């Protein structure tokens, strides 16, 4: 841009700049939206840039910016559609008459048009557009995240971050396993095991319901030092590759999955992977096999 800087405007962080637009347009998936929102909480430059983007969009949304089709055009089109319906030859398109170079048939003007129109107007284009319109949800993947990876880990990290951000760590706060376990009864169609691991250095904080992968799941919350562990539990042992146990990481969070007694467990934490592994072993040892 050749424009000179006016007021000193703080630029947003380079790695967030595009994401701010994704957030503004509602095109980020839940976990990225949360991540950017979390960033906005702590970064003045980005928060200011985002506020400015919103304000300027408001400017562009004021009444008077959209145009209304002229009545004369409306009437001409209505007549043309009626004529076409009656089988009469429609009047030639005004553009062809007005813009075609002399001596050339008007319908051949412009290779751009013929190529693109065939694509758009043709059955394949119609299908592609229809398909695109049917894809209601679209997530913009940030760099570094491979497309095609199951979105479940992202969703789990979202659940974990959400529980921390919204200060909604637990619905039932009780360090006693015998207080937490009955709370789930009647709220879930399965009974998640709740075990006491205080002597192993993992204190039970409580439990809550969460919503993962289109179903209500149990989330147990444990804590080691300042690190929170969310343990998501739901029935079923379906897993990619049929592995009984695997691990991954997302955005600095460790995720660890295992299956036991017909239930799937996902532990999510910013705890280091080694300690999260300890947690899994301790939990699995005490939960009913």
């Amino acid at each position: 841009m050749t424009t000179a800087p006016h007021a000193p405007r703080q630029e947003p962080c380079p790695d967030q700049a595009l994401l701010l637009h994704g957030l503004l347009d509602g095109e980020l998936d839940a976990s990225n939206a949360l991540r950017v929102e979390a960033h906005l909480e702590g970064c003045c430059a980005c928060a200011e840039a985002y506020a400015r983007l919103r304000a300027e969009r408001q400017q562009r949304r004021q009444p008077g910016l959209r145009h209304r089709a002229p009545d004369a055009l409306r009437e001409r089109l209505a007549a043309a559609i009626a004529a076409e319906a009656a089988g009469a030859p429609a009047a030639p398109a005004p553009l062809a008459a007005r813009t075609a170079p002399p001596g050339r048939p008007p319908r051949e003007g412009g290779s751009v048009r013929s190529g693109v129109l065939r694509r758009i107007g043709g059955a394949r284009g119609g299908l592609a557009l229809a398909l695109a319109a049917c894809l209601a949800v679209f997530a913009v993947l940030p760099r570094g995240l491979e497309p095609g990876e199951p979105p479940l880990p992202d969703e789990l990290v979202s659940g974990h971050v959400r529980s921390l951000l919204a200060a909604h760590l637990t619905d039932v706060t009780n360090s006693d396993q015998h207080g937490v376990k009955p709370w789930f009864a009647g709220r879930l169609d399965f009974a998640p095991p709740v075990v006491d691991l205080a002597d192993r250095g993992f204190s039970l904080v409580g439990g809550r319901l969460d919503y993962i992968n289109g179903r209500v799941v149990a989330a147990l919350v444990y804590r080691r030092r300042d690190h929170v562990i969310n343990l998501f539990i739901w029935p079923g042992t379906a897993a990619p590759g049929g592995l009984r146990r695997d691990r991954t990481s997302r955005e600095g969070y460790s995720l660890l999955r295992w299956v036991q007694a017909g239930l799937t467990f996902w532990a999510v934490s910013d705890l280091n992977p080694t300690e999260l592994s300890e947690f899994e072993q301790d939990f699995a040892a005490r939960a009913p096999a």
Partner: protein
Amino acid sequence: MADAAARFNDTVMPHLDAAYTFARYLARDRDCAEDIVHDAVLRALRSFEDYRGGDARAWLLAIVRNCFLTWAAARSKAGGAPAVRADGGTDEPAGDPWDREAVTPEAALLRRDEAAAVRTLIETLPEPFREALVLREMEDLSYRQIAEITGVPIGTVMSRLARARTMFGASWQRLLGTDAPGSGPGREHAFR
């Protein structure tokens, strides 16, 4: 045939204002926009049998865009000023209208009429950026729909939108700026 026409009237014609708005921002000319929309609607009518459901507005806007490109290509072939490159890429920002007009009565009028000022700022954006911004904010299309219509990857849609907003923001800030028009670095030519 009458059935098809009735279905067309129900499905496509409600989006006439959207088509006209898009054409106005693309062509930046009232009469040409009218012709472009007229042509586009007739084309849509003739290929309506290929329409397979989905968002009729996005479908119509794609046709409007093609008619605009036809018009722009023909105009530049006829010796007029090129409106847009065939690939839709004009990467240099157009001149800043406020540099030239800041001291004219029109500019003063624009400053009083905010909607007109915003409209002018949008119309000043280079074509691919203007197009992305209008499709997103006036027509409320998703990134994916815009990518489909303009034939570029979604990442390009995203960066064009970001660029369009940055350019708009810079012009808007300058318009609101408290400094005297024409002052400041890079504006010396306004005094010549």
